[in-house]
């Protein structure tokens, strides 16, 4: 395809030098295609015209164009390398570095602030816990005082009550004992009366003795 197309091109007399170059090109094309042998003859024609438009070789493989291309590649790429390594890249690198240090500094400052906040929160929580403990202590103290007061009052009341109970019991016992002493008298009188009714008069002493005997 390349060869065909190229032959076509070569036959086209496009500019003033075309006819001559094309003539030479035609002759070459019969025997060889893309890699047409750049013989000295063809070469000379090419260079003399300074226009490779119709030279015999596939343009990218035309050695006649190599020196100029290499020269300008060296100039342009060399210039690019120098501009990049001396100017553009250090500048962009500097911008990026500068931004990075700034962001790092900001992050560090933010971190410091955060730590400060954390410390403040911790201090607040410690104070809160302390206050809570103090409040609990006061509450406990009050409760204990109230309980002690309550207990003492209750024990006082209990002691009072039990003393009253024991006094009442003593009185009851006394009354009972008193009553029991009267029982003998009543029994003697009753017995005297009963015996008096049945037998007649008996001395009170003997009745009392009899009652004591029965009771005994």
């Amino acid at each position, binding site marked *: 395809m390349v060869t065909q197309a190229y032959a076509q091109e070569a036959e086209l007399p496009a500019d003033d030098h075309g006819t001559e170059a094309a003539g030479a090109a035609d002759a070459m094309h019969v025997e060889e295609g893309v890699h047409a042998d750049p013989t000295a003859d063809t070469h000379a024609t090419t260079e003399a015209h*300074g226009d490779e438009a119709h030279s015999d070789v596939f343009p990218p493989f035309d050695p006649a164009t190599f020196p100029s291309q290499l020269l300008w590649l060296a100039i342009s790429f060399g210039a690019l390398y120098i501009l990049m390594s001396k100017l553009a890249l250090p500048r962009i690198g500097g911008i990026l570095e500068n931004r990075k240090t700034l962001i790092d500094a900001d992050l560090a400052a933010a971190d410091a602030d955060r730590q400060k906040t954390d410390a403040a929160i911790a201090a607040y929580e410690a104070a809160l816990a302390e206050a809570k403990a103090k409040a609990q202590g006061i509450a406990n103290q009050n409760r204990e005082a109230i309980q002690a007061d309550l207990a003492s009052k209750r024990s006082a009341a209990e002691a009072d009550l039990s003393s009253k109970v024991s006094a009442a019991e003593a009185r009851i016992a006394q009354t009972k004992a008193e009553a029991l002493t009267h029982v003998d008298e009543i029994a003697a009188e009753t017995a005297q009366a009963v015996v008096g009714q049945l037998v007649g008069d008996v001395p009170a002493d003997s009745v009392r003795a009899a009652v004591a005997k029965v009771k005994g």
Partner: protein
Amino acid sequence: MAGTDPIHQFVITDIFELFTLGGDGTEGSGTTFAFTNSALFMVLTVATIAGFLLLSTSGKKLIPTRAQLTAELLYEFVAGMVRSSAGTAGMKFFPLVFSLFTFILFANMFGMVPYFFTVTSHIIVTFALSMLVFITVIVYGFVKNGPKFLKLFVPAGVPGYILPIVTPIEVISFLSRPISLSVRLFGNILAGHITLKVFTGFAVMMIAALGAFGWAAAILPILMAIALTGLEFLVGAVQAYVFAVLTCMYLNDAIHPSH
């Protein structure tokens, strides 16, 4: 007028002649250097890259403008490529890789503009660039590692009796690097541009030969050419990337020769 010839776009024409080295003073003898259309686009490529990078970063803004951000992204992209393939020690070659990548990328993109010349469609240019890499690798490899650089051809952990087979293979693969590197770029760009021209040429020929019916039929090759244009933009970018990545990997061999 080039017509539908797909090769015409690669023809190098002199814009003005500079000087002649050697020869006997007669017409056609010696080596003539000239400012050609290729040279014009090399200079344009370099001027565009340098102009863009220097103008966009001239503000040195902390919060970048769009253009500055693009320049920074380009920088970080290539820097990341060098760092990941060749390590931090490879960063001394960062300007080289960056220049290669941007030069090839911008040259390829310039080549996609109609009537513009594609610098990278000439084997001598791609070969010169790949030889630059190759020679840099060899020179730096020997300067930094001395004879240890030859360990590159003797992979570690390979049993001695296989070495007579492996070492020649390694040497051949090393020597073929500049060829594969240059032919890959050259071939991709050349073939892509020829294909584009052939398909658009079909359209022109159909219209010329078939008249009204030709206009209708020409839609097909035009659609193909549109799709191929998109593909060629991709190929242009990918080939620049591939060239840069392989450069990094070859430089990595020079920095750390034992595999």
